[in-house]
């Protein structure tokens, strides 16, 4: 069946091609017969008009995209303090680009139409003009200087955190591995304990140095909770390959590089609940749910289970190719009110990593009969040798 369909498509394409060529052939009728395969007046006319038409096509594509897709771009409703600044710069650049695009494409295609060749006509010998060259060097230079200055100002504000701000900030580690994220909170002392992949062993899957006093109150979570209105400094680590922590709604992204700690910080300004209540977001979500409902109908008809309806959540996505399941490496981000955050901390901060490691060790000891799984003992011994090796270094 598929083969037949493909055959039909191929045949139709061939017919379409033949017909289209025919159109160009037909335009030759009446013109002087010549088959030199060099454009004649007729070709110039037809293609000149098509050039003009193509300008229309570009404009229509633009308008179509703006009408139908303009709600896609993340250019409003940013959920971080620096977000509006990024969006404003994006807006300015976009407007500028659309303006230049509209004008230059018009000139290009209009000239291609207007000055289509005719036999016996001669072109204007116009080889250079320094004044013109100067104008179209200096105008982009001035405009770009403005954009560069604005951009650098914003960049510096985003990337370099003042020391005072840093002192009040919460420090959270984002830990990446194929193919999941984990967050490590610094605990009451707000200082992350030292860590290195060489400490990874059993329950200590983030490689925390358990002997470091700063590490004693560190705890980890597979869901990222951050409080509204407080600066969060993210320290990114990766245990295997490059990953990129991409949080589009916060206009935030930074690569996670094995062997080094990278950093990005922002101040969340909208809680998850507030974001869900934004009119634009309500519309987006209902739109998505309509799509999902339609898909579900089809699935149910095929005897499969329906899709869950979608509710908005902030996401942390991996945005650097990291292997087979790169397409599904995500973590939910929840922006809490300060109060909610405090409650969440209280609930979770007790389950420290140190505690988890101790519990795991105790459990292992409790079930330490010689018959119990060989695998766990062998992997344990492997882990110990690894740590021993690390210590030797």
């Amino acid at each position: 069946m598929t083969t037949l369909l493909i055959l039909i498509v191929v045949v139709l394409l061939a017919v379409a091609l033949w017909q289209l060529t025919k159109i160009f052939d037909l335009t030759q009728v009446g013109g002087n017969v010549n088959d030199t395969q060099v454009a004649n007046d007729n070709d110039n006319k037809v293609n000149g008009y098509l050039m003009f038409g193509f300008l229309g096509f570009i404009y229509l594509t633009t308008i179509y995209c703006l009408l139908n897709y303009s709600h896609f771009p993340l250019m409003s409703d940013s959920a971080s303090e620096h977000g509006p600044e990024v969006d404003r710069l994006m807006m300015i650049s976009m407007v500028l680009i659309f303006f230049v695009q509209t004008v230059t494409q018009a000139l290009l295609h209009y000239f291609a139409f207007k000055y289509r060749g005719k036999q016996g006509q001669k072109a204007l010998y116009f080889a250079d003009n320094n004044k013109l060259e100067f104008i179209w060097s200096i105008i982009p230079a001035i405009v770009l200087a403005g954009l560069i200055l604005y951009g650098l100002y914003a960049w510096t504000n985003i990337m370099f955190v003042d020391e005072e701000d840093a002192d009040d900030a919460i420090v959270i580690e984002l830990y990446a591995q194929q193919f999941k994220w984990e967050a490590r909170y610094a605990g009451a002392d707000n200082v992350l304990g030292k860590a290195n992949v060489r400490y990874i062993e059993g329950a200590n899957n983030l490689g925390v140095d358990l002997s470091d006093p700063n590490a004693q109150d560190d705890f980890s979570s597979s869901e990222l909770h951050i409080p509204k209105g407080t600066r969060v400094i993210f320290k990114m680590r990766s245990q295997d390959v490059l990953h990129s922590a991409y949080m589009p709604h916060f206009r935030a992204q930074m690569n996670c590089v094995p062997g080094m700690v990278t950093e990005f910080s922002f101040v969340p300004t909208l809680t998850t609940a507030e974001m869900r209540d934004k009119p634009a977001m309500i519309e987006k979500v209902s739109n998505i749910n309509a799509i999902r409902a339609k898909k579900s109908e089809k699935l149910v008809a095929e005897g499969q289970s329906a899709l869950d309806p979608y509710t908005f959540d902030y996401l942390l996505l991996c945005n650097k190719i990291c292997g087979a399941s790169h397409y599904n490496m995500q973590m939910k981000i929840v922006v809490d009110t300060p109060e909610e955050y405090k409650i969440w901390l209280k609930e979770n901060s007790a389950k420290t990593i140190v505690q988890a490691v101790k519990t795991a060790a105790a459990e292992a000891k409790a079930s330490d009969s010689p018959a119990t799984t060989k695998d766990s003992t062998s992997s344990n011994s492997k882990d110990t040798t690894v740590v021993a090796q690390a210590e030797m270094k």
Partner: protein
Amino acid sequence: MSAEVHNHDHGHDEHEHHHKDTFITKYIFSIDHKMISKQYLITGIIMGVIGVGMSMLFRMQLAWPEESFKIFSFFLGERMAPGGVMNNETYLALVTIHGTIMVFFVLTAGLSGTFSNLLIPLQIGARDMASGFLNMVSYWLFFLSSVVMVISLFVESGPASAGWTIYPPLSALPQSMSGSGAGMTLWLVSMAIFIASSLLGSLNYIVTVINLRTKGMSMTRLPLTIWAFFITAIIGVISFPVLLSAALMLIMDRSFGTSFFLSDIYIAGEVLHYQGGSPVLFEHLFWFLGHPEVYIVLLPALGITSEVIATNARKPIFGYRAMIMSIIAIAFLSTIVWGHHMFISGMNPFLGSVFTFTTLLIAIPSAVKAFNYITTLWKGNLQLNPAMLFSIGLVSTFITGGLTGIILGDSTLDINVHDTYFVVAHFHLVMGISALYGMFAGIYHWFPKMFGRMLNKNLGYVHFWVTAVCAYGVFFPMHFIGMAGLPRRYYTNTNFPLFDDLQNVNVIITVFALVGGAFQLAFLYNFFSSIFYGKRTVQNPWKSNTLEWTAPIEHIHGNWPGAIPEVHRWPYDYSKPGHEEDFVPQNVPMKPGEEVLHH
């Protein structure tokens, strides 16, 4: 001039062993630049079919991620697409090899290799390249690297899949993905051979342009094609060796346990011994080639466009010197902007500021070029041949794609669109489609010179218009899904309900892509049938000024049967007042009292 005497002798030598040509020396191990250029072109086209074909397959996957297609298993085999379902690893392998093939094998070797080889000797008035032998070696190394790359598609663990940028540790550790096994080894070997080929070619181009210009062909009388090829070759010589060193270091890391790019890695349940290296170093080395590579791809296309637009507008190219200056400025800047690929790589943010500054500067010479092309059209007598359409199309996509560079080059804005489809749309328009258009323009324009026959123009028109519409249809909407935050290199977005509303855009894009891809068959048919059955050409079909059209249609060793023509004027005397014809070839002496009317 001694140069001329030398050339003349050389020509004689060629003539003397002309009779000893066998099939092998003429068609296979040829040292004639015209034959080598055809070899490059046809190898490039074959690689192009593979590269574009792959993109059709993964576009289908993106549009209909839940469907299975028989043609997946037909083209990819049951191993890579069991039961017609493209799995995630196959998808990554396809995008990786698509990128590699298109950037290096089609748009670097296929484009530069073809037209530098064909045009440098013919347009500067030389009998052949400075070293015909090196030129032959260069082609055969390219061929070998293509073969290795194609073989890598068939290895058990799959071809390289870490993206065409092959960032370690993903590319360095076979544990991290199956494509980083034997497939990656072959990829690296193939690229190392490719770089050797590219270097031999580039050195040859540089030496030839500097030493073998005919009498009267000063640097400021060179056609802009030659300027573009010349500067491209220089950038290649500067930047390709850096990629070679990166590839060698990566091979060392992979196979000999060094730690250039690796440190502190825990994977598949064990800690690896690597210590002290940094993947960021690899990114620096890669992009030190990778960014100039964009211009290695683009500048020859712009050079071809300059020539084609001037010839078909029957007008001098506007601002010849400004064009040369902007080529040089772009080339220089291209070597100091690589960091804009790494704003969020973890390098010091201060460096980000520096690279934002240098990157946005590139917009100035680019703007100069765009405006000069537009002004060249103004008050011209445009002969809208297929080559001319592709050249105008190039200027159009160069503008559309180039403008979004202002966003991506700005570190602040890059934070949120980095590695999204916005980037994909940007670089496909500005270097992919533009360079492809340049290549098509070159093929339509110089086909008569290469094969002595004409391409069918009506097929050419259909080819251009469908391609032009589809290129916009594919890449214009793509900006929007990128700005919505959709990351590249996801084989499906179904795990993110957040992106569900982008799915119908993906379908539209794929439909345009499939139609555009299918209509390339019109070109392939036109190309291969016209080689044998095309209408025979006259010597100078486009009434062009440059020297290649003074050589006979029939290809001979040494290009010109008699003495090499002497050059008396620049190549852009189109529609010059005081001349009957609307073109005055470079070898026509100045009339008594005729003035030079350009700067």
